[in-house]
C-alpha cells in the first residue's frame, strides 16, 4: 500500500509516495536518490544509516517512512552549509575513515553526540549522572560513538576528530 508523504531532507521539501513498508533509509536512497546515509545492515546494528530526525539521531533503517511524514531529516551532506561542517574537516584532518562508507553515519552521530552532551545527557560511562555538565572525554566519545561500526577500524582516529570539535564547542576541557 502506498502513501504520499512529505519530508524536509537536508533543507529541501520533498514529496513522495512510499510503500507503508518502506524504511526512511530506503525512502531516501531508493526513492529520493539521497544517498549520503548508507545501508550497512538494515537492522539497526551498524549505524551507517544514521540521520538526524527532527534534530535527534536515529538509525533510519529502523524508521518507517510513513511515520516520518512532515519531519525534518538531516544527513551528513545536509550538515554542511556554505562551508563544510567542522566535523567534515576534522574527519579529513584526522583520517577518521578509510573506505568512507560508514563515515556519513559517523559524522551525523558525532554531531548528535555534541548536541547530547551540550544538553547534559549522560551516557553509560558518565560517572556523575546528575551533573549539569559532562565533559566529553575520550571514554565518553568512544562509548557514545559505539553505535556506529567501522570495519576499516578508524576508531582511534574518529575519537580525536570528534574531540577537536568538542573543544571548539565548549563541551570538552
Amino acid at each position, binding site marked *: 500500500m502506498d502513501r504520499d508523504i512529505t519530508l524536509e531532507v537536508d533543507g529541501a521539501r520533498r514529496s513522495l509516495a512510499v*510503500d507503508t*513498508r*518502506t524504511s526512511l533509509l*530506503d525512502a531516501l*536512497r*531508493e526513492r529520493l*536518490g539521497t*544517498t*549520503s*546515509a*548508507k*545501508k*550497512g*545492515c*538494515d*537492522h539497526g*546494528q*551498524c549505524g*551507517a544509516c544514521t540521520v538526524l530526525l527532527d534534530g535527534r539521531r536515529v538509525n533510519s533503517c529502523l524508521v518507517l517512512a510513513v511515520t516520518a511524514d512532515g519531519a525534518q531529516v538531516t*544527513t*551528513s*551532506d545536509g*550538515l*554542511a552549509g556554505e562551508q*563544510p561542517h567542522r*566535523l*567534515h574537516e576534522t*574527519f*579529513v*584532518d584526522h*583520517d577518521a*575513515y*578509510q*573506505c*568512507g*562508507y*560508514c*563515515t*556519513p553515519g559517523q*559524522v551525523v552521530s558525532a554531531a548528535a553526540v555534541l548536541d547530547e552532551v551540550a544538553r547534559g545527557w549522560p551516557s553509560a560511562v558518565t560517572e556523575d549522572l546528575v551533573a549539569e555538565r559532562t565533559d566529553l572525554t575520550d571514554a565518553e*566519545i*568512544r*562509548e557514545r*560513538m*559505539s553505535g*556506529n*561500526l*567501522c*570495519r*576499516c*577500524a*578508524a*576508531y*582511534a*582516529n*574518529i*575519537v580525536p576528530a570528534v574531540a577537536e570539535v568538542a573543544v571548539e564547542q565548549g563541551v570538552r576541557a
Partner: protein
Amino acid sequence: MTATTERAVGSDVRRIDGPDKVRGRAPYAYEHELGAQPAFLAVVQSTVARGRVTAIDASAAEAVPGVVAVLTHQNAPRLGDVAEEIAVLQSDRVQYVGEPVALVVAETSEVARDAAGRVLVDYDAQPADVRLAADRDDLYAPEQLMAGFATDSVIGDVDAALAAAPVSVDVTYETPNQHNNPIEMHATVARWDGDVLRMWDANQGPHNLVPVITEAFGITEDQLHIVSPYVGGAFGSKAYTHAHQLLAGMAAKVTGRTVKIELTRQQMFSLVGHRTPTIQRLRLGAQPDGTLTAISHEVVEHTSQNAEFAEQTATATRLMYAAPARRTTHRLAKLDVPAPTIMRAPGETPGMYALESAMDELAVALGIDPVELRLRNEPERDPERDVPWSTRNLVACLRQGAERFGWAGRDPRPGVREDGRWLVGTGVAAATYPTRRRPSQARIEAVPGKPFVVSIDASDIGTGAWTTLTQIAADALRVPMEQVSLRIGDSRLPKASGAGGSTGITSWGPAIIAAAEQLRDRDVPPGGLTVTGSSGPGDEAETYSSHAFGAHFAEVRVDRDSGEVRVPRMTGVFAVGRVINTTTARSQFLGGMTMGLSMALHEESVLDQGRGHYANHDLAEYHVAANADVAEMDISWVDEVDDEHNPLGAKGIGEIGIVGAAAAIGNAYWHATGRRVRDLPITPDKWFRQAPAR
C-alpha cells in the same frame, strides 16, 4: 614539464577523496544515478545444506503486484563455463545452506523481498556435514595451496629433532570461521545496452571480474563495462566474482531492465565467502639457550563441496625463524559449507596467531623473555628457500616496539598484577606478510595547459589508492598533485591487478612510473600526447625472499569476576619499505591491528552443526570491534627502503597490521591470568572454564 622540488611521496597529504566521502557524496555501487527506473532483485536461498530441489512453486510470488519475473534453475539463462560455486541457478543441486535457488525481480525492493518470501521450494535433503575436526578420517592433502604454495614442506628429521630437544612445546590452537563483513554490503547495478553489459559494482578491481563475467555471458571484453570508483571496504570478500553479480546480469538480460541487487547482511554470511576455521598443532623444540632445533606446524582446515579453497596457513612458519629441522602440512575437510574465500592476510592471520602463541609458550617453558627468544632465532637467509632477504627488519621492529611500549623490566610471572578486579598483563608477537607485485598497465594523457590524466584500473577499497597513486604520479611527472587527474575503478581503463594480497602499490605504482618515463624529456605537441607503461614481476621473486615484518605489543586487562577482556593499549611497529603516505599508512596499520583485536576477542561465525547454517549471521551476533573496544594505539615504522623488490622501494601494508595482533593479545591474556585460551575468540565465557582464581 614543470620541475618541482617538493616530493609528494612520503608526505602526510590528506585523502583527495575525503571531502566527498565525509559528506556522503562519493557514489558507491548501489548509488549511481542511471536515469531509468531500476528493478530490484531479491534472492531466495536454500534452507538445506545438501540435496536437490524437487519442486519450486513461484505462483504466489508471481501474483504479487509489482513482480516482474521469478528466475529459478528451470528458467534462468544458461551460463558459460564458470566455477561450480558461482554456477548460480544452473541445476537443481544444493551444496550449502543459503545457496540461491530463485531470484525475484520487482518494481520496488519491498515487493521483491515480500515476493521472495512467497516462493515455495521443496527439497530432497540429506544431512549436513559441517564438522571440522582433526580426527576426521576423510581429511585430504590438496595438490597445492592458494597462490601455488606447496601443500607440505619438510626439511630434516623433525620427529627425531623434537624427541631430542631439551625443551619443547606441543600445543594445538583453533581459529574460528570468520566473515569479512565490509560495511558496504555487496551490491551490483546491471544493465544491458544492446549486447554490452554494464555493471556498477562493489569489487576489489573490475579486471578481476572480467574473465569470469565475459565467460558467463559469452561476451567479449569489449562487451563488458564494470564501473567501481568507490568501494565500501572489502577485506577479500569483494576480490572474486560471486553469484549475485551473475544474478544481476541474468536478471537484466531477461527483463531488459536496469536491475539493482544488494545482498542483505544475513546473505553475506553465505554468498560472498568466509575465512576457513583452522585447527593447528604446533610443536617447537629448542636448546636451553632458546635456539630452535625443530618446528612442526600441522594445519587442518575446511573447504566446501563446490570449491577447493586451500588456505596457506602455515607458509609464514616456513620463513619466520631459523631451525635445522622443520615441517609444515595442510589437510582439508570438504564440508557442506559455502565456499571459503580470502580474508585480510589469508594464511598469515590464522597461521601466525598459532606460531606466535606457541613461541610465547616456548619462551615460558625456557624461562626466556619472549622478545629475546625471537631475536635468538633470527634467520640470516630464508630458511627454507635458501635465498637472501631483499630486506628483513624484524629485529628493528621488536627493539623499537619494546622501547616504545616500555617492555624492559617486565616481570615474566603470570597472574600476579592486580588492579582492583582487573588482572593485568602484557604480550608480544611478531608479524610478517609477503611482498609481491603483479602485472599492471597505466596510461597518461598529456595536453598542454591541462592536468595530466593518469588512468589505471586500480581500486581503492579504503586503502588510500586515490591519494597514493596521485602522489606517485605527481612525483614521476615532476608536477604538483593538483596537476594530476587520476582515473581508477573502471574496466575500460588500462588493465591492472586487483586490490588484494597487499600488492596494490607495488604493482600499480611502478606501472604509473613506467608510463611517466615515456613522457620524460619529450615535448608535448599542442594536440596532446598519450603514453602507456607497464610493470610486473621481475626476477626478484626468484632472487630474493621479500616480506614485510612487524611486531605487536599489547596490554590486556581481565575482569576476574566477569571474564571481560580489555585492551587499554597496543603498540605496533612495522618494516614495510618506503611509506608513500604517512597518514593513510598509519590508518592501514591501525585498521589491521584493530581487526586483529577484533579477531582475538570477538569474531566467530557459528555453524549450526545440525542444519549447517551460520547461526549468528548478522552484526548483532557476529561481533566486530566497536569504538569502545579500542583505546590507545601506538603505531610507527622503521626506516626501510626495499630497492631490490620494485622501483618504489615499497612493500604492501594493507594486511600486515592484522598478522600477529591476536597472538600478542592472547599472550598478554596468559600473562595477566596464567591461563591459556587456545581457541579464539577469547570471549568472557572461556574465563569460566576454570574455577575463579581467587
